[in-house]
């Protein structure tokens, strides 16, 4: 696979004439030596605070390699007087063994002051109506933002980057609220869920081999840091919902959150102050144990006397986003996990 190249530096254009300017741009691109296919699989809207624009802009050509889209990169600065500016550009990659180039277009929008509130109408008018729309909401902006609420009413997919797995569990609260508030047709995920796919895969792999899952009685989740983390909470909720355990109590035992379930099952979170490796222990009713430990580039899976390693996949923002943009359907595993973690969170925060 060849890399992706920007056909020309972004050209500033009149906001009212973006479509016309894009047509002109395509005519210029197509008149070049190589035949061009203008490819758009869906509308991709990346929204960030102005200060994060450079970082977000770097994602655009990399994502274009995997997902040919009409990309709209929208940066907001609500602290300065109202203004709107727009640029257009295109990114092309050559098909292997062919002269043909596959190109996708990008529109860069700066929405300042209260024009940020009107950004949704501009994005809607620029979205190709026959195609689905994915919104990626950068962590530089709060989740409780009217633009996100507005975009999620018409988007098919919203991907937030609200938190990371090491952040305190309390940071999940606004995300749970967003998750509950968006229309049913819109699929919302956070990159945290994608980031946890490595852990979920490792646990699933452990229990492919370790056939004692029906005797699982207690799970201990050790996380670095001194607080219950987002990653630990959501992973714990996923384990409990996968096992179909019914919550009976949520409490703090010292510093340790402990969730009790019907049938004498327990989930114990152990924030270990950063000294212990992140990992999970699985205790079975017959006294045997299993474990998943995370090392730098692999998981170590232990079931009784047997140990083996599992690969750790990339968790940088680009890889996670590219992966998430492949999945447009609602993930019932996430639904169940969010519901459970959402139920536990008030008790844990209150405690």
């Amino acid at each position, binding site marked *: 696979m060849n890399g992706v190249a920007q056909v020309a530096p972004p050209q500033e254009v009149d906001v009212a004439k973006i479509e016309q300017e894009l047509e002109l741009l395509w005519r210029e691109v197509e008149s070049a030596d190589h035949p061009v296919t203008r490819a758009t699989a869906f509308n991709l809207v990346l929204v960030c605070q102005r200060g994060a624009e450079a970082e977000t802009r770097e994602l655009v050509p990399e994502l274009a390699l995997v997902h040919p889209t009409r990309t709209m990169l929208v940066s907001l600065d609500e602290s300065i007087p109202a203004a709107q500016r727009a640029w257009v550009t295109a990114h092309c990659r050559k098909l292997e063994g062919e002269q043909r180039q596959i190109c996708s277009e990008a529109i860069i929008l700066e929405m300042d002051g209260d024009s940020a509130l009107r950004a949704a109408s501009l994005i809607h008018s620029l979205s190709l109506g026959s195609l689905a729309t994915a919104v990626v909401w950068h962590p530089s902006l709060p989740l409780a933002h009217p633009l996100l609420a507005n975009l999620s009413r018409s988007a098919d997919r919203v991907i937030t980057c609200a938190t990371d797995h090491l952040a305190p569990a309390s940071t999940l609260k606004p995300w749970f609220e967003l998750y509950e508030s968006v229309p049913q047709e819109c699929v919302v995920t956070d990159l945290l869920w994608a980031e946890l*796919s490595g852990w979920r895969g490792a646990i699933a792999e452990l229990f492919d081999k370790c056939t004692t899952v029906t005797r699982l009685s207690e799970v201990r989740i050790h996380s670095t840091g001194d607080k219950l983390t987002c990653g630990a909470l959501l992973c714990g909720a996923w384990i409990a919902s*996968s096992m179909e355990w019914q919550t009976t109590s949520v409490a703090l035992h010292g510093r340790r959150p402990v969730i009790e379930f019907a049938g004498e099952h327990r989930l114990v979170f152990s924030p270990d102050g950063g000294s212990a490796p992140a990992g999970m222990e699985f205790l079975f009713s017959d006294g045997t144990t299993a474990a998943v430990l995370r090392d730098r580039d692999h998981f170590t899976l232990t079931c009784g006397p047997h140990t083996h390693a599992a690969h750790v996949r990339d968790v940088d923002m680009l890889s996670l986003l590219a992966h998430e943009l492949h999945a447009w359907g609602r993930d019932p595993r996430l639904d169940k996990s969010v519901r459970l973690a959402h139920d536990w969170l008030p008790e844990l925060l209150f405690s």
Partner: protein
Amino acid sequence: MSDSTANPFRSGMLMEHPADPCVLIIFGGTGDLAQRKLFPSLAHLVREGRLSEQTQFLCVSRKPLDEHGFRAEVIANARQLAPDSIPDETFAQKFSARIFTVTDAGEGGRFDRLKTRLTELASSGGPRNHLIYLSIPPTGYAPTIAALGAVGLSASDAGAWSRIIIEKPFGRDYASAEALNSAAAAVFKEEQIYRIDHYLGKETVQNILVLRLANTLFEPIWNHHYVDHVAITAAEALGVEERAQYYEESGALRDMIQNHLMQILAMIAMERPASLAAEAIRDEKRKVLESVRPFTEQDVPNIAVRAQYAAGAVAGKAVPGYLEEQGVKPNSRTETYAALKLHIDNWRWSGVPFYLRTGKRMPKRVTEVAIVFRKVPHMVFAQSPVDRLEQNVLAIRIQPNEGISLKFEAKLPGHALHVRPVEMDFRYGSSFGGRLSDAYERLLLDAMIGDQTLFARRDSVEEGWRIVQPVLNAWAHDANDALPQYVAGSWGPSEADVLLAARNHRWRKL
């Protein structure tokens, strides 16, 4: 493979099922296929983290092989043939460290040294699962399988599995295919045998099921009420290259039609499976192949065409005729082109001909399935300048430029009513970015996971041979008839056009 339904954490995660750790035992590891396809595919799988960290590759050679030198050769070839499979030196070292060799010619009908080497690898923490890959000349299949059985390497037990991948050709006629299958069945159970047909690993072939079963648009018209005929083409621009010895014994019918094109036909024509389980799909494929109308040797002149390429030019370059190719017998009657007209005698396809053609030294490399729909029942444009309407065609391009196009009629802009065929075109390369996995990557991974969906089952292989056997017999018996020729760089002999002309059908221009 573990039963995923017993593992609640697997729920909704089937596509992410990891490959079990195993030793991939490659017979023929120094050969062209292993160097050109298998090792680069394995490198890609390792790069993408799709293989277990413990998985190792053990190359079995008849002659002594220096392990260090062999690793270097694998890396050098992969760098040359699939440069992105080996991104840097660190990866090259990591990948080559998984490669091991053992010399064992199977003397006395036993692979004792191989068995010992596997025991050594296992005792130093290597996997106990064994995936055996036969990438050797077909004459070696039966003795190799027997020798594996003699040392117990076919045995799966509770803690470990043993599977075998067999490369095509699976026999050279019905009798030899049956004999090979019986030899394999004497040592391995059917669920351990993975007959690889790399066409089935291609993204577009897999997409046939999705196209049919995930869209409401196509399945209702996927039958004789709407489909006029189906044409499956596998054209190659290359000649026999370095494979003259193999090709002389094989020919186009055995090399392409009996296996690749017959499997594609089955995917196109089969009934909807009850589920996506491997056996459900393979059952439907068997049923549809069983429904292919039998014919006799006497029918062959009316349903089959063969030819050899004569000197000509491909892509502007002069090329010799088949008989002038190095390694080809001067009086060879091996066909480099074959076309078949088949009928499927079932409710869905009654009266719909399926045309299959393949050839070497054709104008370009292209494999496609064309579903050609019936003409409109009434020509409402009779009093207008529109004198004829083309038939709608759904074309599934398997290689290159994998994709699907739909041809339909559209009005030309302007006051007069002029109609022209246009195409809606979907291409994997432009709709989806990223790298398309090589078919071998998918198939190797499936074999390690234990998913047989994309591998040919014994019954469908034997059905494929049953279908073509009368053609093989007829062609073997008409040794004195002149073999039709086609100019290299053309789309085949005129006889192949005649095959379709009876129903006013034509091969598509590709």
